[in-house]
């Protein structure tokens, strides 16, 4: 079973050289720590920055420089700043090629629910609906099951939807799964020590198993 950092580490292997990437709050943010140094990629912050750098040292903290999670950040050489309309023009226009975000539920046809739980105070969707409606590649980082053991990989999302048929891949604490164009979670990799049977028992949606399913490796 993977911890949060290992989920992030595994997702980092999906990153390709030259990509522009938007990382959501939570586990997706951790992905930045594991992108290999030999890859040139640019991280976008939807509040108006391309080229997110590391967190600042105390003396470099600038209240006018935050990421979409409202954290203080720095810029890299070659960064650019822009307004929110331009930022979502980039996203909607497909220029941000990869979006990695968290989810409460994903369905076997790629629907995602991650913004609202009925009966709870709704804080808003922020930029999530724009992001999932736009990027050519969307990878979800999530726990395979809820705290009370219910599968979060479903036939159909029970929670209010954030976007339809958009998720391409899911990386959980148990597995790496691809959403097939015709529907279904194709099991690509198992977390170390996790059996196909366990994944099957914890996946409510249709699980597609073809041949031997390899165990993940970490470099």
């Amino acid at each position: 079973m993977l911890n949060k950092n290992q989920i992030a580490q595994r997702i980092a292997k999906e990153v390709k050289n030259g990509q522009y990437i938007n990382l959501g709050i939570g586990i997706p943010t951790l992905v930045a720590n594991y992108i290999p140094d030999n890859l040139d990629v640019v991280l976008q912050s939807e509040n108006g920055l391309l080229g997110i750098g590391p967190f600042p040292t105390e003396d470099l903290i600038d209240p006018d420089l935050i990421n979409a999670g409202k954290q203080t950040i720095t810029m890299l050489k070659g960064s650019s700043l822009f307004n929110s309309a331009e930022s979502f023009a980039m996203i909607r226009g497909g220029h941000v090629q990869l979006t990695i975000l968290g989810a409460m539920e994903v369905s076997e046809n790629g629907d995602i629910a991650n913004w609202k739980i009925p009966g709870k105070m709704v804080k808003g969707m922020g930029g999530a609906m724009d992001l999932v409606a736009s990027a050519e590649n969307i990878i979800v980082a999530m726990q395979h099951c809820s705290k009370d053991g219910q599968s979060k990989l479903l036939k159909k999302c029970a929670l209010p939807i954030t976007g339809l048929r958009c998720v391409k891949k899911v990386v959980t604490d148990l597995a790496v799964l691809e959403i097939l164009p015709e529907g279904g979670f194709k099991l690509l990799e198992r977390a170390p020590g996790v059996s196909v049977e366990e994944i099957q028992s914890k996946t409510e949606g249709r699980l597609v198993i073809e041949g031997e399913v390899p165990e993940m490796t970490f470099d």
Partner: protein
Amino acid sequence: MINKTVANAEEAVKDIPSGAVLMLGGFGLSGIPENSIDALLQRDIKGLTCISNNAGVDDFGIGLMLKKRMVKKMISSYVGENAEFERQLLSGELEVELIPQGTLAERVRAGGAGIPAFFTPAGVGTEVAEGKELREFDGKLYLMERWLKADFAIVKAWKGDTAGNLIFKGTARNFNPMMAAAGRITIAEVEELVPAGDLDPNQIHTPGIYVQRIFQGIDYEKRIEQRTVTGERS
């Protein structure tokens, strides 16, 4: 060049009436018009509709206007952690309309740009789509969204000149430029107000045509919501 200068925040907001529709720039607490909000808090007005990406925190930004019960309705993409907000919402005192952030930015941009409606893929298949026209273009589904305008747009810039030209700094730019264009009356507060001609025309982010009133603000707090330093990870 037309001079847009007013003396201060009090002067700038003095005629905003109860029931007005306001846009307020900022993302989180970054780039919010602190001085104008303070001046609004001194006014005895209520029933405001506030279009702003976020709703401030309990004791800063729009949160203070909520606490004073000046706001009837918030139009935002994310309202965050704000106990007073939650209380008013649950008690029915406050109305909230949640809009995807990119759609909010584009609707405001459309308001300033004379585009009454446009199509976006954000929200297709979700409750955001309810009651909206759905349409297919080139094999993909889109929603029709309408422009947003305001009686008063209140924005915060880094530098400005007396002609109303604005330059923003860092990610404090965010919604400010689009809101400046979408206000019938746009009020701009700046950290540094300079004479017309001192700013490089190539570097203006918001041309003065969009700004009706400008003043130099004072005592900016620029509160940080999530102070993170090297080595930390959330």
